C-alpha cells in the first residue's frame, strides 16, 4: 500500500514537472500561439514581397502557399520589379489598403517609406504582419506581429559551428590567432545584430575554454562586443571586424584579403551574401580557405545562399553557412495574419537561422531555403 502511495506521488511529481516543462516550452516558442488555429472565414490577404528577383522570395511564397492550404485561406503575392523600386511598392501597398483587406503581409523595401501607409492601416483597423524585415518605428497599432529572422541567434549559430572546426587549433596555438569577420555595413539593424551575435557567442566559447579575447577593427562592433577581456597585444585570440567603405563585393573582398593574408588568421565569417562572396573573391587569389584547420586551412563560414556560396559550401571552401528561412517566414506570416483576422492578440515570431554544410544542404527542411 505504501509502495502504491509512493508510486502515485512519484507519478504526480513527474506529471507536474512534465506540465511545467510544456508550459515553459510554450512560453519560449511563439509559434505555439498558432496551435489549433482555424480561419473563421476564408480570408484573402495581400502579401507584399520586396521583389520577384531572387529565389529567396520564391521560397517565401512556397511557405505562404503551404500555410494557406492548411488554413483554407488565400493570399495574393505582389511586389515591385526590384528591391530598390521603393515608390512602386508604396503604390501597391496603398492600392491594397484601399480595398480594405482583413490583413496585410508586408516585407518593406524601405521601412521609412511605408510609415504613412501603416498609419492608414492603423486608422482603418487593418492588422499588418511584417515578415523578413521588421519596422522598428512603426506607428502605434499598425503592426500586430513581426515574423523575422532572429539575427542575433543566426550570428551565434555561425560562431558555434565555426568554433567546432577551429577548437583544436585555438587550443594548440603557439601565439596569438585571428578570427576575422566581414560585415557589409555597421548601420543596418539586421547586419548589426548578426555581426554582434557572432562576436559575442565566439567570445563566450573562447572564454569557456580559458582563452583571452580582444575585439579590434570597426568601432561599432568593438563597442557592441560583450565580454572581451584582453588588450590587443596580449590576447590569445583577436576577433578582427572589417566593414568596407561601400557595400560592393570589391571592397568586401579587399577587406577580407587584408584579414586573410595575415599568417595567424585561422577563420573568417562573411555575414551576408555580399560579404561572404567578397571573402570568396579574396580567396580566389589567396587560396587559404578549406575544411582542414589542423593542416593550416583557414576556416570560412558564410551567410545566406546564392549559387556561388552554395558551390563553395559543397566543395568545402566554406565549411558551411547560415541560411535564413524565407520559407518559414512566409509560412508563419500567413498564420499570423489569419490569427489576427480572427481577432487574436499576437506576439512576434522570430524565425531561426539554420546551419548548412555539404552534408545537409540537400535535406528536405534545408534545401527549399537555399535560393540561387
Amino acid at each position: 500500500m505504501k509502495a502504491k502511495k509512493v508510486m502515485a506521488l512519484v507519478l504526480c511529481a513527474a506529471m507536474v514537472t512534465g506540465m511545467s516543462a510544456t508550459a515553459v516550452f510554450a512560453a519560449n516558442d511563439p509559434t505555439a500561439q498558432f496551435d489549433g488555429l482555424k480561419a473563421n472565414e476564408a480570408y484573402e490577404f495581400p502579401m507584399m514581397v520586396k521583389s520577384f528577383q531572387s529565389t529567396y522570395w520564391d521560397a517565401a511564397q512556397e511557405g505562404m502557399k503551404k500555410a494557406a492550404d492548411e488554413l483554407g485561406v488565400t493570399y495574393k503575392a505582389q511586389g515591385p520589379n526590384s528591391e530598390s523600386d521603393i515608390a512602386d511598392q508604396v503604390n501597391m501597398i496603398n492600392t491594397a489598403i484601399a480595398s480594405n483587406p482583413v490583413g496585410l503581409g508586408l516585407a518593406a523595401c524601405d521601412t521609412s517609406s511605408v510609415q504613412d501607409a501603416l498609419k492608414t492601416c492603423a486608422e482603418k483597423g487593418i492588422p499588418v504582419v511584417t515578415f523578413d524585415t521588421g519596422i522598428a518605428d512603426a506607428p502605434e497599432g499598425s503592426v500586430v506581429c513581426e515574423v523575422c529572422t532572429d539575427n542575433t541567434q543566426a550570428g551565434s549559430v555561425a560562431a558555434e559551428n565555426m568554433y567546432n572546426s577551429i577548437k583544436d587549433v585555438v587550443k594548440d596555438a603557439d601565439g596569438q590567432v585571428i578570427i576575422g569577420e566581414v560585415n557589409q555595413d555597421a548601420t543596418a539593424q539586421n547586419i548589426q545584430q548578426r555581426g554582434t551575435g557572432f562576436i559575442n557567442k565566439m567570445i563566450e566559447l573562447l572564454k569557456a575554454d580559458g582563452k583571452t579575447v580582444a575585439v579590434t577593427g570597426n568601432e561599432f562592433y568593438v563597442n557592441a562586443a560583450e565580454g572581451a577581456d584582453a588588450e590587443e597585444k596580449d590576447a590569445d585570440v583577436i576577433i578582427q571586424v572589417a566593414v568596407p567603405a561601400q557595400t560592393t563585393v570589391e571592397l568586401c573582398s579587399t577587406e577580407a584579403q587584408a584579414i586573410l593574408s595575415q599568417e595567424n588568421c585561422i577563420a573568417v565569417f562573411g555575414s551576408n551574401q555580399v560579404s561572404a562572396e567578397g571573402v570568396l573573391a579574396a580567396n580566389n587569389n589567396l587560396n587559404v580557405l578549406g575544411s582542414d584547420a589542423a593542416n593550416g586551412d583557414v576556416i570560412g563560414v558564410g551567410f545566406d545562399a546564392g549559387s556561388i556560396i552554395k558551390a563553395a559550401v559543397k566543395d568545402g571552401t566554406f565549411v558551411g553557412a547560415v541560411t535564413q528561412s524565407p520559407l518559414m517566414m512566409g509560412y508563419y506570416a500567413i498564420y499570423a495574419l489569419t490569427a489576427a483576422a480572427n481577432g487574436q492578440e499576437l506576439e512576434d515570431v522570430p524565425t531561426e537561422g539554420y546551419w548548412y554544410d555539404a552534408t545537409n544542404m540537400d535535406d528536405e527542411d534545408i534545401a527549399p531555403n537555399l535560393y540561387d
Partner: protein
Amino acid sequence: MTKKKKSILSDQRFIVLLVIIVLSAIFSGMSKEFRQYTTILSMLDFSYYDLLMAIGVTFPLITGGVDLSIGTGMVAYALIGGTLIRNNNCPVVIAMLVCIGLGVLIGALNGVLIGVMNLPPFLATLCTCMITRGAGSLCSATPWPGLTQDGGWFHTIFKITVGTGRSASRYPIGFLWMILLVLIMEFVLNHTKFGRYTIAIGSNKEAAALSGINVKFYHVMVYVICGLFTGLAAIAYAAVTPTVQPGTGAGLEMDAIGGVFVGGVAATGGYGSVIGTFVGIFVIMLLKTGLPYIGLQANWQQIITGIVLIVAVLIDIVKEKKAATK
C-alpha cells in the same frame, strides 16, 4: 602653345607615378601582408573594369562632357549577359558580344542626345544612368560561369591559372591587354583625326565647327567609344564579381572619373591623355587596396581618398596657372 601643354601633361603623369611609388612604399612599409604577390593580383583583378571604364570616359571628359551612365551601364550589361548565359543557355562569347553591343548602343544614344540634340552631357547621361539601372533590375542576380564551370574560359582573358588549388600559379595577363589598349587609345587620341577632333571639340566647339569639322558626328563617336569600353568593362566586371546584383552600379563611375582627373585630364576639357588615365586609376586602386591593409577603418579610407584626389587635381591646376603666367 601645344608644346607647352604637352610638357605640363608629361609632368602630371610623372607626378602621379611618383604618388604611386610613394603610396606603395608607405603601404609596404606599414604592412607586411601588403607586400605579397596576391595583393597585386587582387588589385589588378579589380582594376580592369575601373580602368576600361576610365579609358572610355577619358574621351567625353576631354570634350568637356561627362558620362555618368558607365557604372550602372556596366552592371546592366553584365546582368543581361549573365541572364542570357544562365537562362537561355547562350554561349559566353555571344553574351560578351551582347555586352559590347549594348555598350555601343547606349553610347550612341548618349552621343545623339548630346552631340545632335544638344542636351547637356550631365543631364543626358544621368537619364541613361537611370535607364540602364532600371534595365539591369529587370534581371535577377546572376553569376557568370565560374572558372571551373562550363564557359568559365573567359576568366583566362584576364588571369591565367595554371594548376588547381593551393599549388596553382596565377598570371595577370589582363594587365598586358590593358597596356596594349592604353597605348592604342593614346595613339588614337594624339595621332588620328578622331582624337584631334575630340580635343578640338573640348577646346572650342564653335571654332571646331567653323573650321569645317563635322562636330556632330565626332561628338557622337566620342560617346560611342566610351560605350564600347563600358561594354568591355562589363566583361571584366563579370569576371571578378561572384554574383552581379541588380540595382547596383551607381557610384562605380566615380572611381573611373576620379582616376581620369588624377591622371591630368583638364576638368574643363580640351586636353588629357590615356596614359595619364592609366596611372590615375592606379592611384585610386592603390588607395582602395592599401588603406584596409594598414588597418584604417572605412570612414578614414574615404576621407584620405578624397584628400589625395584634391591634392592631385590641385597640383594640376597650380601648374597650369604657373604655365599661363609665364
